Structures are given as structure tokens and as C-alpha cells.
């Protein structure tokens, strides 16, 4: 399992660097950019259960908070929650095929967005228009990128998945 943690940490750090690089803004569609770190969190929850999903969500969310202008916990809590919830369902319930992955990421991003909006109402400055301007476009964008990324992660975590009996 330690290998999974190390690989996950490396992928999260690379994604964080890519996502915060100035040139990454070029790929904004409808004003939003995809959340690669979140896709990894969902993947880990989906493949390795709620425990790993929530830990990955929490740690990567704290990293995300430290780079972003958000208060600590603002981006970690939604990722932690979604990582935990996706892990409760996991591969044993949802079969690994393209439509399922798209739907999983789309619904998970919506859930993450709603939790973030709720937190922003309580702790920062909430705007209901974010549903249309941020949450839905990001859900589409993440869902579009998820199948190829899941395919790559399946290759990267091949050994671990075989041990879990999914491959």
C-alpha cells in the first residue's frame, strides 16, 4: 500500500504544479479550468476505498489550500467528503467503463461544488451564480478529461489493482 501512497503523492504534486502554472490558464473553457487533483481523489476513492479516498482528498486539499488564496480546509473539506463517499461505492459497485466514469466524475464534481458553495456562504463570500459560472462548467470539463486520465491511472496503479483483484 505504501507504493500507492507514494505514487498518489507524486501525481498530486505534479497535478498541483501543472494546475497552478500560469500557462495552464490558456486551457480555460467557459472561464474554468479542470481540477486534476480532484480527479485523482475520485480515482483513489473509486479504486482503493473510502479510507484512501478521504486521506488523499484531505491531504491533497490541504496542499491545494496552501497554494490557493483559500483558508485552510476550504478546498480540503469538499475533496475529503467526496473521496470518502466515492470510496463507499467504489469499483465493486460501479463497473469501470467510459459512461460510468464520466457520470461518476460529473456527479462528484457537482457535489464538490455544492459543498464548496455552502462553505463559501458560511466562511467567505458566497455567490449563487457560481453554480452556473463555475460548478457546472467544471463538472463538464472534469467529466471530459476523466476517461483518459482514469486509463492512465489504471496503467500506473496496475500492480495495486491486481492485488485488490480488480484486474
Amino acid at each position, binding site marked *: 500500500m505504501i507504493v500507492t501512497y507514494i505514487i498518489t503523492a507524486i501525481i498530486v504534486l505534479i497535478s498541483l504544479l501543472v494546475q497552478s502554472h500560469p500557462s495552464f490558464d490558456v486551457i480555460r473553457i467557459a472561464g474554468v479550468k479542470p481540477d486534476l487533483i480532484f480527479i485523482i481523489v475520485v480515482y483513489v476513492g473509486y479504486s482503493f476505498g473510502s479510507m484512501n479516498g478521504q486521506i488523499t482528498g484531505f491531504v491533497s486539499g490541504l496542499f*491545494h489550500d496552501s497554494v490557493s*488564496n483559500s483558508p485552510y480546509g476550504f478546498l480540503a473539506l469538499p475533496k475529503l467528503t467526496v473521496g470518502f463517499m466515492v470510496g463507499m461505492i467504489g469499483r465493486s459497485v460501479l463497473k469501470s467503463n467510459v459512461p460510468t466514469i464520466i457520470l461518476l466524475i460529473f456527479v462528484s464534481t457537482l457535489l464538490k461544488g455544492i459543498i464548496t458553495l455552502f462553505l463559501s456562504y458560511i466562511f467567505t463570500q458566497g455567490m449563487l451564480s457560481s453554480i452556473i459560472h*463555475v460548478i457546472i462548467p467544471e463538472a463538464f470539463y472534469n467529466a471530459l478529461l476523466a476517461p483518459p486520465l482514469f486509463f492512465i491511472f489504471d496503467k500506473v496503479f496496475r500492480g495495486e489493482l491486481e492485488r485488490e483483484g480488480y484486474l
Partner: protein
Amino acid sequence: MDFFERHKPIAIFISLTLFCIISLSVQGSGFTLTFEGIMSGITMPFQKGYNGIQGGTSRLWAGFSELDRVKDELELTRSKLQTFESIDVEISEIKKENDRLRTLLGMKEMLRYDSVPASIISKDPDNWYRTLIINRGDNDGIKVNMPVVAYQAVNNGDVRELVKSVVGKIVEVRGSVSRIQPLIAPEIKIGVKIGENRFPGLLSGYTYNSNLCVVNYITRAAPVKFGDLVITSGQAGVFPQGLVLGTVVKSELLESSPYQRAIVKPFIDYNLLEEVFIIKKAPEKDLFELFEELK
């Protein structure tokens, strides 16, 4: 103990969730490691959560039941607005007089500030924030609330010219890096003036994902039109007066508000921005504190 072993993922989930909520609550609240501080750290999330839910419910209820009160407040706000408008006219008269006296005394028209060039090394990785990280910090004499400008090429008819425009302000400083809050961030508030008549307003980011700004609290009498220039008013004590920000693309008269608002396109293209200049101007303390209190 056996219970926690059996429900380990749920126990950890609850612990981490509480950690996040406490962390969110204590930030920016002057939390200290005293008994009182620890207790307030424990109780504050519940207080804030309660206040948030209560506030949300009240706002929802107000929409249905407090229309009369809103109407009274609208009248009151209108009368206040008239008072403020007369104050603004008075201020502009005083400024003109000040300019005349300066000319008579042979003083410099405007103070000039040193600026520090910087490169953008990172942008906010999330869609909920739009901050920029630059490679200058405390070591370079950068302080919080210093204004940031950049040069942007814009088309003026057939001629393409460089315009010095506001990017945002410094909100966080570390050893060798700083964080800029740009004009397009909904959290920012800048006092501005619009058009040839210089009607005042308050500029902030339009939405989290757009590259537009919105100027609120413009009097309904102001003739705001497409292409009107938006400049800093200098009244909040952070930005020097007269820096250009952008141009009006649309003005909106809202039924529910005694004001009109204008959508503004900043001169700066935030997707392509690479180099900025930090103006070494400390905020005017009294004005800044007053403005922060009013916010």
C-alpha cells in the same frame, strides 16, 4: 475501542471534517493558544454554522415578508445617496482648488512612486479564487495593499498603444514571493470614477470565472455608456488617483436597486499577463482604515 476499530473510516472522516471546520473558523479571527482561544475554537464552528443557517433563512424569509421594510430602506438610501453626491461635488471642488493652489505655489502636480518589476510565477490552481503569485516579496520591500500595475497593448482606432493599467493589489507577502488579488476577483473592492463626468462607484470582480469586473453604486442619473473609461478614485487610500482600469461594456439599471451598475472589461488580459510592476506606495492609513470599516 472496538467500536472505533470497526468504524475506522467513519471515525477518521468525522475527525478530519471537524479539523477542516475548526481550521476554517479560526482563520482570521485572532485565535490564540489560550483556554479562551481553544474554547472559542471549539464553539466558533457551531456559532458560525448557526449564524450562517440563521442568516440564510432570514434572507430567504425577508424576500417574502419584508418588502415594506425594504421599500422604506430604499427611500432612506436614496436620501443618503443625495447627501453623498453633494459631498462628492464638494470634494471635487476642493480638489480643483487644491490643484490651483499647488500651481500657484509651484509644487509638483502628483507624487511619483518607485515601482518594482516582477514576473508571475504561479496562478491560483482553483476556479474559486483568481490570485496571482509573483517573484517579489518582503525581501524586495513589498508590503500588503501595495497597488500593482502592468502595461497592456490596446487598439486605439488604427493605432496600437501601450496602456498602463491596474492589475490588482498585494494581499499576502512572504520572503521572496507575494500574492496579488486581481481586479477580476469578486473579493476585491476599489473606489473608481466613470466617464467624463467622473461619477463614483465601487469596482469588484464580476464572477469567479469571468475576466470582467462590475462597478456598483453608480447613481441612476449618471449617463454611463459603452466605452466610458474607468479610473481609480484614490479615495480608499490604496490606489493612487487616476490609474486606468478598463472600459464600460454594458450598463444595467436594476429594478430593485436605487443605483445602476456597469460591467467593465479591464485593459489587462489576465490569461496572458506575465510581467507586472508593484507601486511602492503604502496605503494612506486613515483613509484605508475608514474604508475597511465601511466594508
